[in-house]
């Protein structure tokens, strides 16, 4: 029984990391309609932001979480203004442009910060295990889970309970009509892109003490993030959450029963079969695209 609880928690922990890295992508993809292949590099930049702030200014992880949101968010805003804005409605071009951007960011970090793995400190208080319901769980993983839920709640409130969110939903449903009602769609796009990038930055900051920090770390994350978004259904916050949960528990459970290599292959196979029969994902909203 202990094993089962352990396994559920371990799946939940994988799910929380998946949710963190895919939340920003889901918002950018769902709202702005851009397939952002540089998303993994935004995650990587978040991790590097922590490393930089920690090694240069001696900041701890907590202030770094907030700062990395704003740093990577600002960069996202810049990218939207300079590149993405010129490519709306040209999906294939944005794929190429964001992929190129990802390569540039990766090499820029390699050239400036160096290619070696970087060390990010784990907060002392969170580096031990705690006992929850009779099982030992990593307190850092609990913390990650907590932050994931917090960011999810913030995002939900932002979209469904604020004036900005209302405009955002209007733009998603029909940009032309929204514009007729005086909504500044260009600004909404830029802010949403920045918000999505900022979330990726926080995700990178959060995983950095648990995993390794290197210039090419984003490559793996972008694949996971797309998998979650595709399975969950584009534009659906609920879908992203459910899909992160399912994929997390599934890959955790399969890895426990067999091994990580087979688990990865089986999960991919499952996703391929799923999108063959349900290309819109599990929880697709029915909306018109402008």
């Amino acid at each position: 029984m202990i094993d089962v609880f352990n396994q559920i928690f371990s799946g939940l922990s994988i799910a929380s990391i998946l949710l963190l890295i895919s939340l920003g992508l889901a918002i950018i993809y769902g709202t702005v309609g851009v397939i952002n292949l540089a998303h993994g590099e935004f995650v990587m930049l978040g991790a590097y932001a922590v490393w930089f702030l920690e090694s240069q200014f001696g900041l701890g992880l907590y202030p770094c979480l907030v700062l990395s949101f704003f740093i990577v968010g600002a960069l996202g805003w810049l990218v939207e203004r300079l590149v993405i804005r010129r490519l709306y409605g040209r999906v294939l071009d944005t794929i190429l442009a964001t992929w190129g951007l990802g390569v540039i960011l990766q090499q820029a970090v390699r050239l400036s910060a160096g290619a070696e793995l970087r060390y990010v400190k784990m907060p002392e208080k969170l580096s031990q295990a705690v006992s929850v319901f009779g099982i030992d769980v990593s307190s850092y993983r609990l913390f990650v889970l907590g932050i994931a839920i917090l960011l999810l709640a913030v995002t939900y409130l932002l979209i469904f309970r604020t004036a900005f969110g209302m405009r955002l939903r209007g733009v998603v449903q029909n940009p032309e009509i929204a514009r007729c009602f005086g909504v500044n769609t260009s600004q909404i796009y830029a802010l949403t892109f920045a918000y999505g990038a900022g979330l990726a930055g926080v995700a990178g900051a959060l995983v950095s003490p648990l995993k390794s920090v290197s210039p090419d770390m984003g490559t793996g994350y972008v694949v996971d993030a797309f998998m979650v978004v595709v399975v969950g259904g584009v534009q659906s916050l609920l879908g992203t959450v459910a899909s992160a949960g399912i994929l997390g528990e599934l890959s955790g459970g399969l890895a426990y029963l067999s091994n990580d290599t087979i688990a990865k292959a089986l999960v991919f196979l499952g996703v391929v079969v799923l999108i063959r029969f349900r290309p819109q994902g599990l929880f697709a909203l029915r909306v018109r695209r402008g």
Partner: protein
Amino acid sequence: MGNITRRHLLQGAAGAAGAVAAGFPHIWIKNADLAQAAGGNIKVGVLYSLTGTTAIIETSLNQATMMAIEEINAAGGVNGRKLVPVVEDPASDPATFAEKARKLVIGEKCVSVFGSYTSASRKAVLPVFERYHNLYWYPTLYEGRECSKNVIYTGAVPNQQQRDFVPWLLKTFGKKFYLIGSNYIYPKEENNVCKILLKKYGGEVVGEEYVPLGHSEFSSVIEKFKSTGPNVIFSTVVGDSVVALHRQYKAAGLDPAKMPMASLTTSEEEVRAMGGEFAAGHFTSAPYFMSYDSPENTKFVAAFRKKYGKDAVTNFVSEPAYFQVYLFAQAAAKLAGSDLTPPTIRKAAWGQEFKAPEGLVKIDGENSHTYLWPKIGEAQTSGQFKIIQQSSEWVKPDPYWAYPGQVCTPDGMVERKS
């Protein structure tokens, strides 16, 4: 259409011409002979990636090699002849390794090339060295089970890393082992050896698992550690995965005093990236640690830091990259200038001894691997290893240890004894 056909024909003809030219390797070797006899200096190739995924570690190999070449030249060179390094960057890509190796061997006519970190890159250059009868000096510990006439291996093979390590772990911590490695040939061969030793000394394998290269999510693996309760986690995980595994191990509340990780691949470089607090209490077996106390090592570390900065780290791959240049120079010094060719250098290298930072090493005259001094180190929070135990004698390399009946002979052949 006609155009395309013609182009194909031309390509085919060019390919055939290339194959014919390549079929007469002795032409090239003659040229190499002449070049060496005429020039006063000795050209050697240096083939480590300075860019790409394995650039960090390979840069340290390049640095150690260049330092040795400079030292040898400063001390008067080889019988008064200077070593001239020709540096190429194969960019962590096996195909580029082969291309650059061809350039060094055919174009630059180097009499030996020092290079490679990964087994994949070594396998990629082998055909070049075999076809042109040149000599490759490979410094990395590797999985063994290779026997080439054209390679001098100065890194450890499984029997050297494990012969003392596995029995010591069994005696100190208990008999239940969990084998975890990255999913490629090196961990699988090492684990073969480990399983044979465990069988011999009454150990037991409670789990064996391979994770994809670059894997960074170890929660399921750690669950399995918890549920199977091994006494030792025998790790051959490589690269960034090492960092993720150690961090998640500690975060999950596991205790190195009860269930230590015993690694063949965790060096000072990996410890620096993960942070000493995550490595402390785990063990590594290798012939060299930066903290090893010997006059040769003190000199080596001081020179390395003087040249590459006070934070520079030496490790169990850069040390062989350093001493193998000296072994090469000693072999070359034995030969008169006129017959300085790769095959004669190889012959002269057999039995060469050198007082390396790890101790006195020797190239075996049969399998061209190297006698080394295995040590067991315990990682400290400082990022260095404390040496717990060291072999009382050098250990003979046996690349086919796990395959009874097979031996590597001087002809570069594997012989099967019935």
